[in-house]
């Protein structure tokens, strides 16, 4: 399997290299769908210039990346294109290995369950075969590397690609069972953009499951491991933040990065839901609605963790998707990360209900974003409402996509325990409804 992956990497790098050299790169660099105020390359360059002048990069209101990132590019700025290509490749390989590991686990569990005869007799067609699972990791890598969203994001040199790489490595370490590395990488991802904080729950659930520790609040072993993992996580977060402080010599970056993420002062249009809403809002409601919008991102962790506590990897997917839909400055690079997971759930397709509608909506929206932007900004004939309408539709499509996968996953699990052909009490064919 290494050969196809290598080929894929070569193809992906070639596409990116060609685009970097073409005149399109300039154009992509400016697209609001691809870069946000947080991760725009122009802003990184600005921050670097300030740093070189001996001024704090956060002294203007332009630069909002974390200190570690700017020090990384302080040394690598001449090789930025290569760094971004490597980051994409790294993400793809990490996702490839993670899904491979995950599939092995799934298959082993399925085998044990089969041997202990736990599945109802009519569910055999739902079981997954190694033949079907064989190409899934490659497809995941392909979905990430050849996704136009990822390519655009990489060509725009949006630092989102690096954040994706960190999250992908975190997933890999988690699935490989290394609590230490997982905690450190999760801390790094949190440090980069706060929102991955919600991935703490699925990672913890995964380790507990792996170590056969039941999720029971009265058991000391549960608390012991939770505290241990939390300690690794918080400890590395403190170390990383402290390191940033010592690199920079001031705490400027806290309000400038995290304050910026939370209070959403920059209302440049993007594919998210925040900008229009807060541009239209009266000033004295702002604080309240910011709280509502931000809590919204984190809130789903609790119900989802309860519902999916047996399926932490699917929970990770759900969390990443929710973050990329509801975060304050989303870009298409974020969308690409969770879309890469879709082939891993390809066995759910018979339970998906709106996938066709959703793919049409997402496709149409991707084409309409630049068109309406042109009409609004260049032609002057449309206005921001047109663009926001498409943003809303795009997010509607994403939410529908995620909830569809959620429903399909739960439904398959339900069938695996209760049999495929459900009967009502009176013997007629029953249908499952998600309520």
């Amino acid at each position: 399997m290494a050969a196809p992956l290598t080929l894929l990497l070569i193809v992906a790098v070639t596409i990116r290299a060609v685009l970097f050299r073409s005149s399109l790169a300039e154009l992509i660099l400016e697209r609001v769908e691809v870069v946000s105020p947080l991760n725009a390359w122009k802003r990184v360059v600005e921050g670097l210039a300030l740093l070189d002048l001996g001024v704090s990069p956060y002294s203007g209101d332009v630069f909002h990346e974390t200190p570690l990132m700017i020090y990384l590019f302080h040394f690598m700025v001449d090789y930025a294109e290569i760094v971004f290509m490597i980051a994409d490749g790294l993400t793809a390989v990490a996702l490839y290995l993670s899904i491979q590991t995950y599939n092995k686990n799934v298959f082993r569990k399925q085998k044990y369950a089969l041997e202990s005869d736990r599945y109802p007799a009519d569910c055999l067609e739902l079981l997954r075969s190694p033949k079907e699972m064989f190409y899934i990791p490659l497809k995941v890598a392909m979905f990430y590397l050849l996704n136009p969203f990822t390519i655009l994001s990489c060509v725009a040199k949006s630092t989102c690609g690096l954040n994706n790489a960190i999250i992908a490595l975190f997933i890999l370490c988690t699935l490989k069972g290394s609590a230490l590395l997982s905690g450190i990488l999760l801390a790094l991802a949190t440090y980069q953009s706060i929102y991955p904080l919600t991935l703490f729950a699925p990672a913890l659930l995964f380790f507990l499951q792996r170590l056969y520790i039941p999720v029971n609040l009265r058991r000391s072993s549960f608390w012991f491991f939770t505290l241990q993992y939390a300690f690794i996580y918080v400890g590395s977060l403190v170390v990383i933040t402290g390191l940033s402080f010592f690199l920079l010599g001031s705490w400027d970056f806290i309000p400038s990065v995290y304050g910026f993420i939370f209070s959403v002062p920059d209302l440049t249009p993007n594919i998210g839901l925040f900008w229009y809403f807060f541009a239209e809002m009266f000033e004295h409601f702002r604080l309240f609605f910011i709280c509502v919008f931000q809590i919204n991102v984190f809130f789903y962790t609790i119900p989802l963790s309860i519902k999916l506590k047996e399926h932490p990897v699917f929970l990770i997917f759900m969390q990443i998707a929710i973050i990329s839909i509801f975060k304050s400055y989303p870009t298409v690079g974020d969308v690409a990360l969770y879309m890469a997971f879709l082939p891993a759930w390809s066995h759910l397709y018979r339970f998906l209900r709106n996938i066709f509608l959703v793919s049409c909506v997402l496709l149409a929206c991707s084409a309409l974003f630049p068109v309406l932007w042109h009409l609004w900004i260049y032609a002057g004939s449309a206005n921001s409402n047109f663009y926001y309408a498409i943003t809303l539709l795009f997010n509607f499509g994403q939410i529908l996509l995620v909830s569809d996968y959620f429903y399909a996953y739960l439904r398959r699990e339900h069938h695996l325990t209760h049999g495929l052909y459900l009967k009502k009490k009176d013997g007629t064919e029953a249908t499952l409804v998600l309520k």
Partner: protein
Amino acid sequence: MGLLSDPNRRKALTNLLTRLNAPICMVCYLAAIVWFMGLAFEPFTLRTYMSENAMGSTMVEERFSSGERALSLAKEFDAHKTKAGGMPVEWLVKAMQARGLEVFTQSFSRKLPFPDENKERYMVRGTNVYGILRAPRAPRTEALVITAPCSPGNSNNQAVGLLLALAQYFRNQIFWAKDIIFLVNEHDLIGMQAWLEGYHHTNITGMEYSPLQGRAGSIQAALSLELSSDVITSLDLILEGLNGQLPNLDLANLFYAFCQKLGVLCTIQGKLQRNDWDTAEGYTHAAQTMMLMVLKQACGRSWGDHGLFLRYHIEAASIRGINGFRHYKMDVATIGRLLEGMVRKLNNLLERLHQSYFFYLLPSLSRFVSIGYYMPAFGLLAVILLLRVSFPGLMLHVCFSVSLQPSGPGVLTVLTPVVISHLTGVALYLLPVHLQEMAVEHFPVSETEAVVLTAVAIYTAGLALPHNTQRLLSGEGTEQGWKVLKLTALLYLAVLLGCTALINFSLGFVLAVTLVPITASMTPHMPKALSALAMVLLSPAFTILYCVFIYQELIEAPVSVSEGWMLFLSVISQGILDHALYGSLVYPLLALFVYPCWLMFWNILFWS
């Protein structure tokens, strides 16, 4: 969410859609056509009204009276033009300076990709002359532009004369709050393009021009004047700009309001307004006017010098004087007063024109159809495509089974025709202009003919190419293969037409009317010869041909078939030239997207 999550209701809906698919599609198509034709019916349209407060409520008084002087200036200009054999730059500079303007010139040159046979030009070299009247009452951050093209021959002298007379008159007024730029541009659109690019420091079309020495504020609005006789019977307003962009409707309202006030006959598309909307003739007249607007907008070229301003976010319109066979004639002074009134109202603007509509169709000057009314006509056509996508019930599963097949030949069978169609499209886009020298060497044709005929040849060759190669590459096509290809092509067409209709409604609608019926019903199991003929007759090139004939019919200059064919060829060459010179997007759109998309359906027909 009931419909989306309740499986029973979903099933009922899907069943209904599958069973009644063909009738629903037919009804949608007819409804779209009827809706569109109904747009011209007066009770369904809205009366135009002035939205901009700054132009509506304020009164201005027009006092311009130097019509005689304008005519004598026009004669003088004519004499100098004939003497100089082109733009009399020195005379113009002197004339403008004598009227107290700050005068500057700009020279430009442009080599066309191939000779323009309509206007007989190839290497274009010219000079623009413009004078700036500085605003006495404001900080000079904003400007208005009045332009008159310096055309070859006898035409447009009166426009330049009136421009100069207006400059002299305006110079003596004290109420200007915006700089006024008087521009005389040579070589119509090319000169205009050079001046606009110079003014905004851009270079998007590869024009060579000298930088502008003098500049006023940001331009708020522009009027282009075309006047070729001493007296006129009516004034025609031209709005259609590059890529089908239209100026804010308030500009048209302003023109209409002043025509009413001064008792000037005004037309749009050269058609007078009729009052008998409830008779058949009245309706036909309005429908013809609207159809003319749709056709003009669809072809995406700039129909007057104003069209290039729109790209820079400047509201602009052309006003053309027409000398017809009516008894009631107006002199130049009246037109001068009309312009004075319009410029004074524009001078009152506090912000750019933005209150009124940007998306509209005009069945007459006093009535308009806004985007909310005409979009459903297109929406009904788009719905057909989406319905057909969902029709062969198993499409969804087909799609998935293809993506699930491990070795992926399913994807490959679709990918090959898609790639080949698009390569043909790229050839159609690039080769005609680049191969002209070779074509001229080998065939006894002129450069222009070579370009157009190469385009036609590639277009025709594309019909033969894809399905053969596809069979060679992937052997026998499967039943599933064409379904997936059709699904892809339908989605592609829907998105493509949707985006086009948003930017240029007319183009999107015209393409949809011809492309939708045949593409929606295409399968490989239809009688080959008959459906191939239908497909060719409804292909993009034939759409252009029909548009040429309909346009000629509507402007009451019907042409014979051979003349129509010559016109069709010249339309293609003009389209390619417009793309190269001003960046019109219709030619690349048709060559790179619409034609390949149509080829995919052609491919389905010959799937085996």
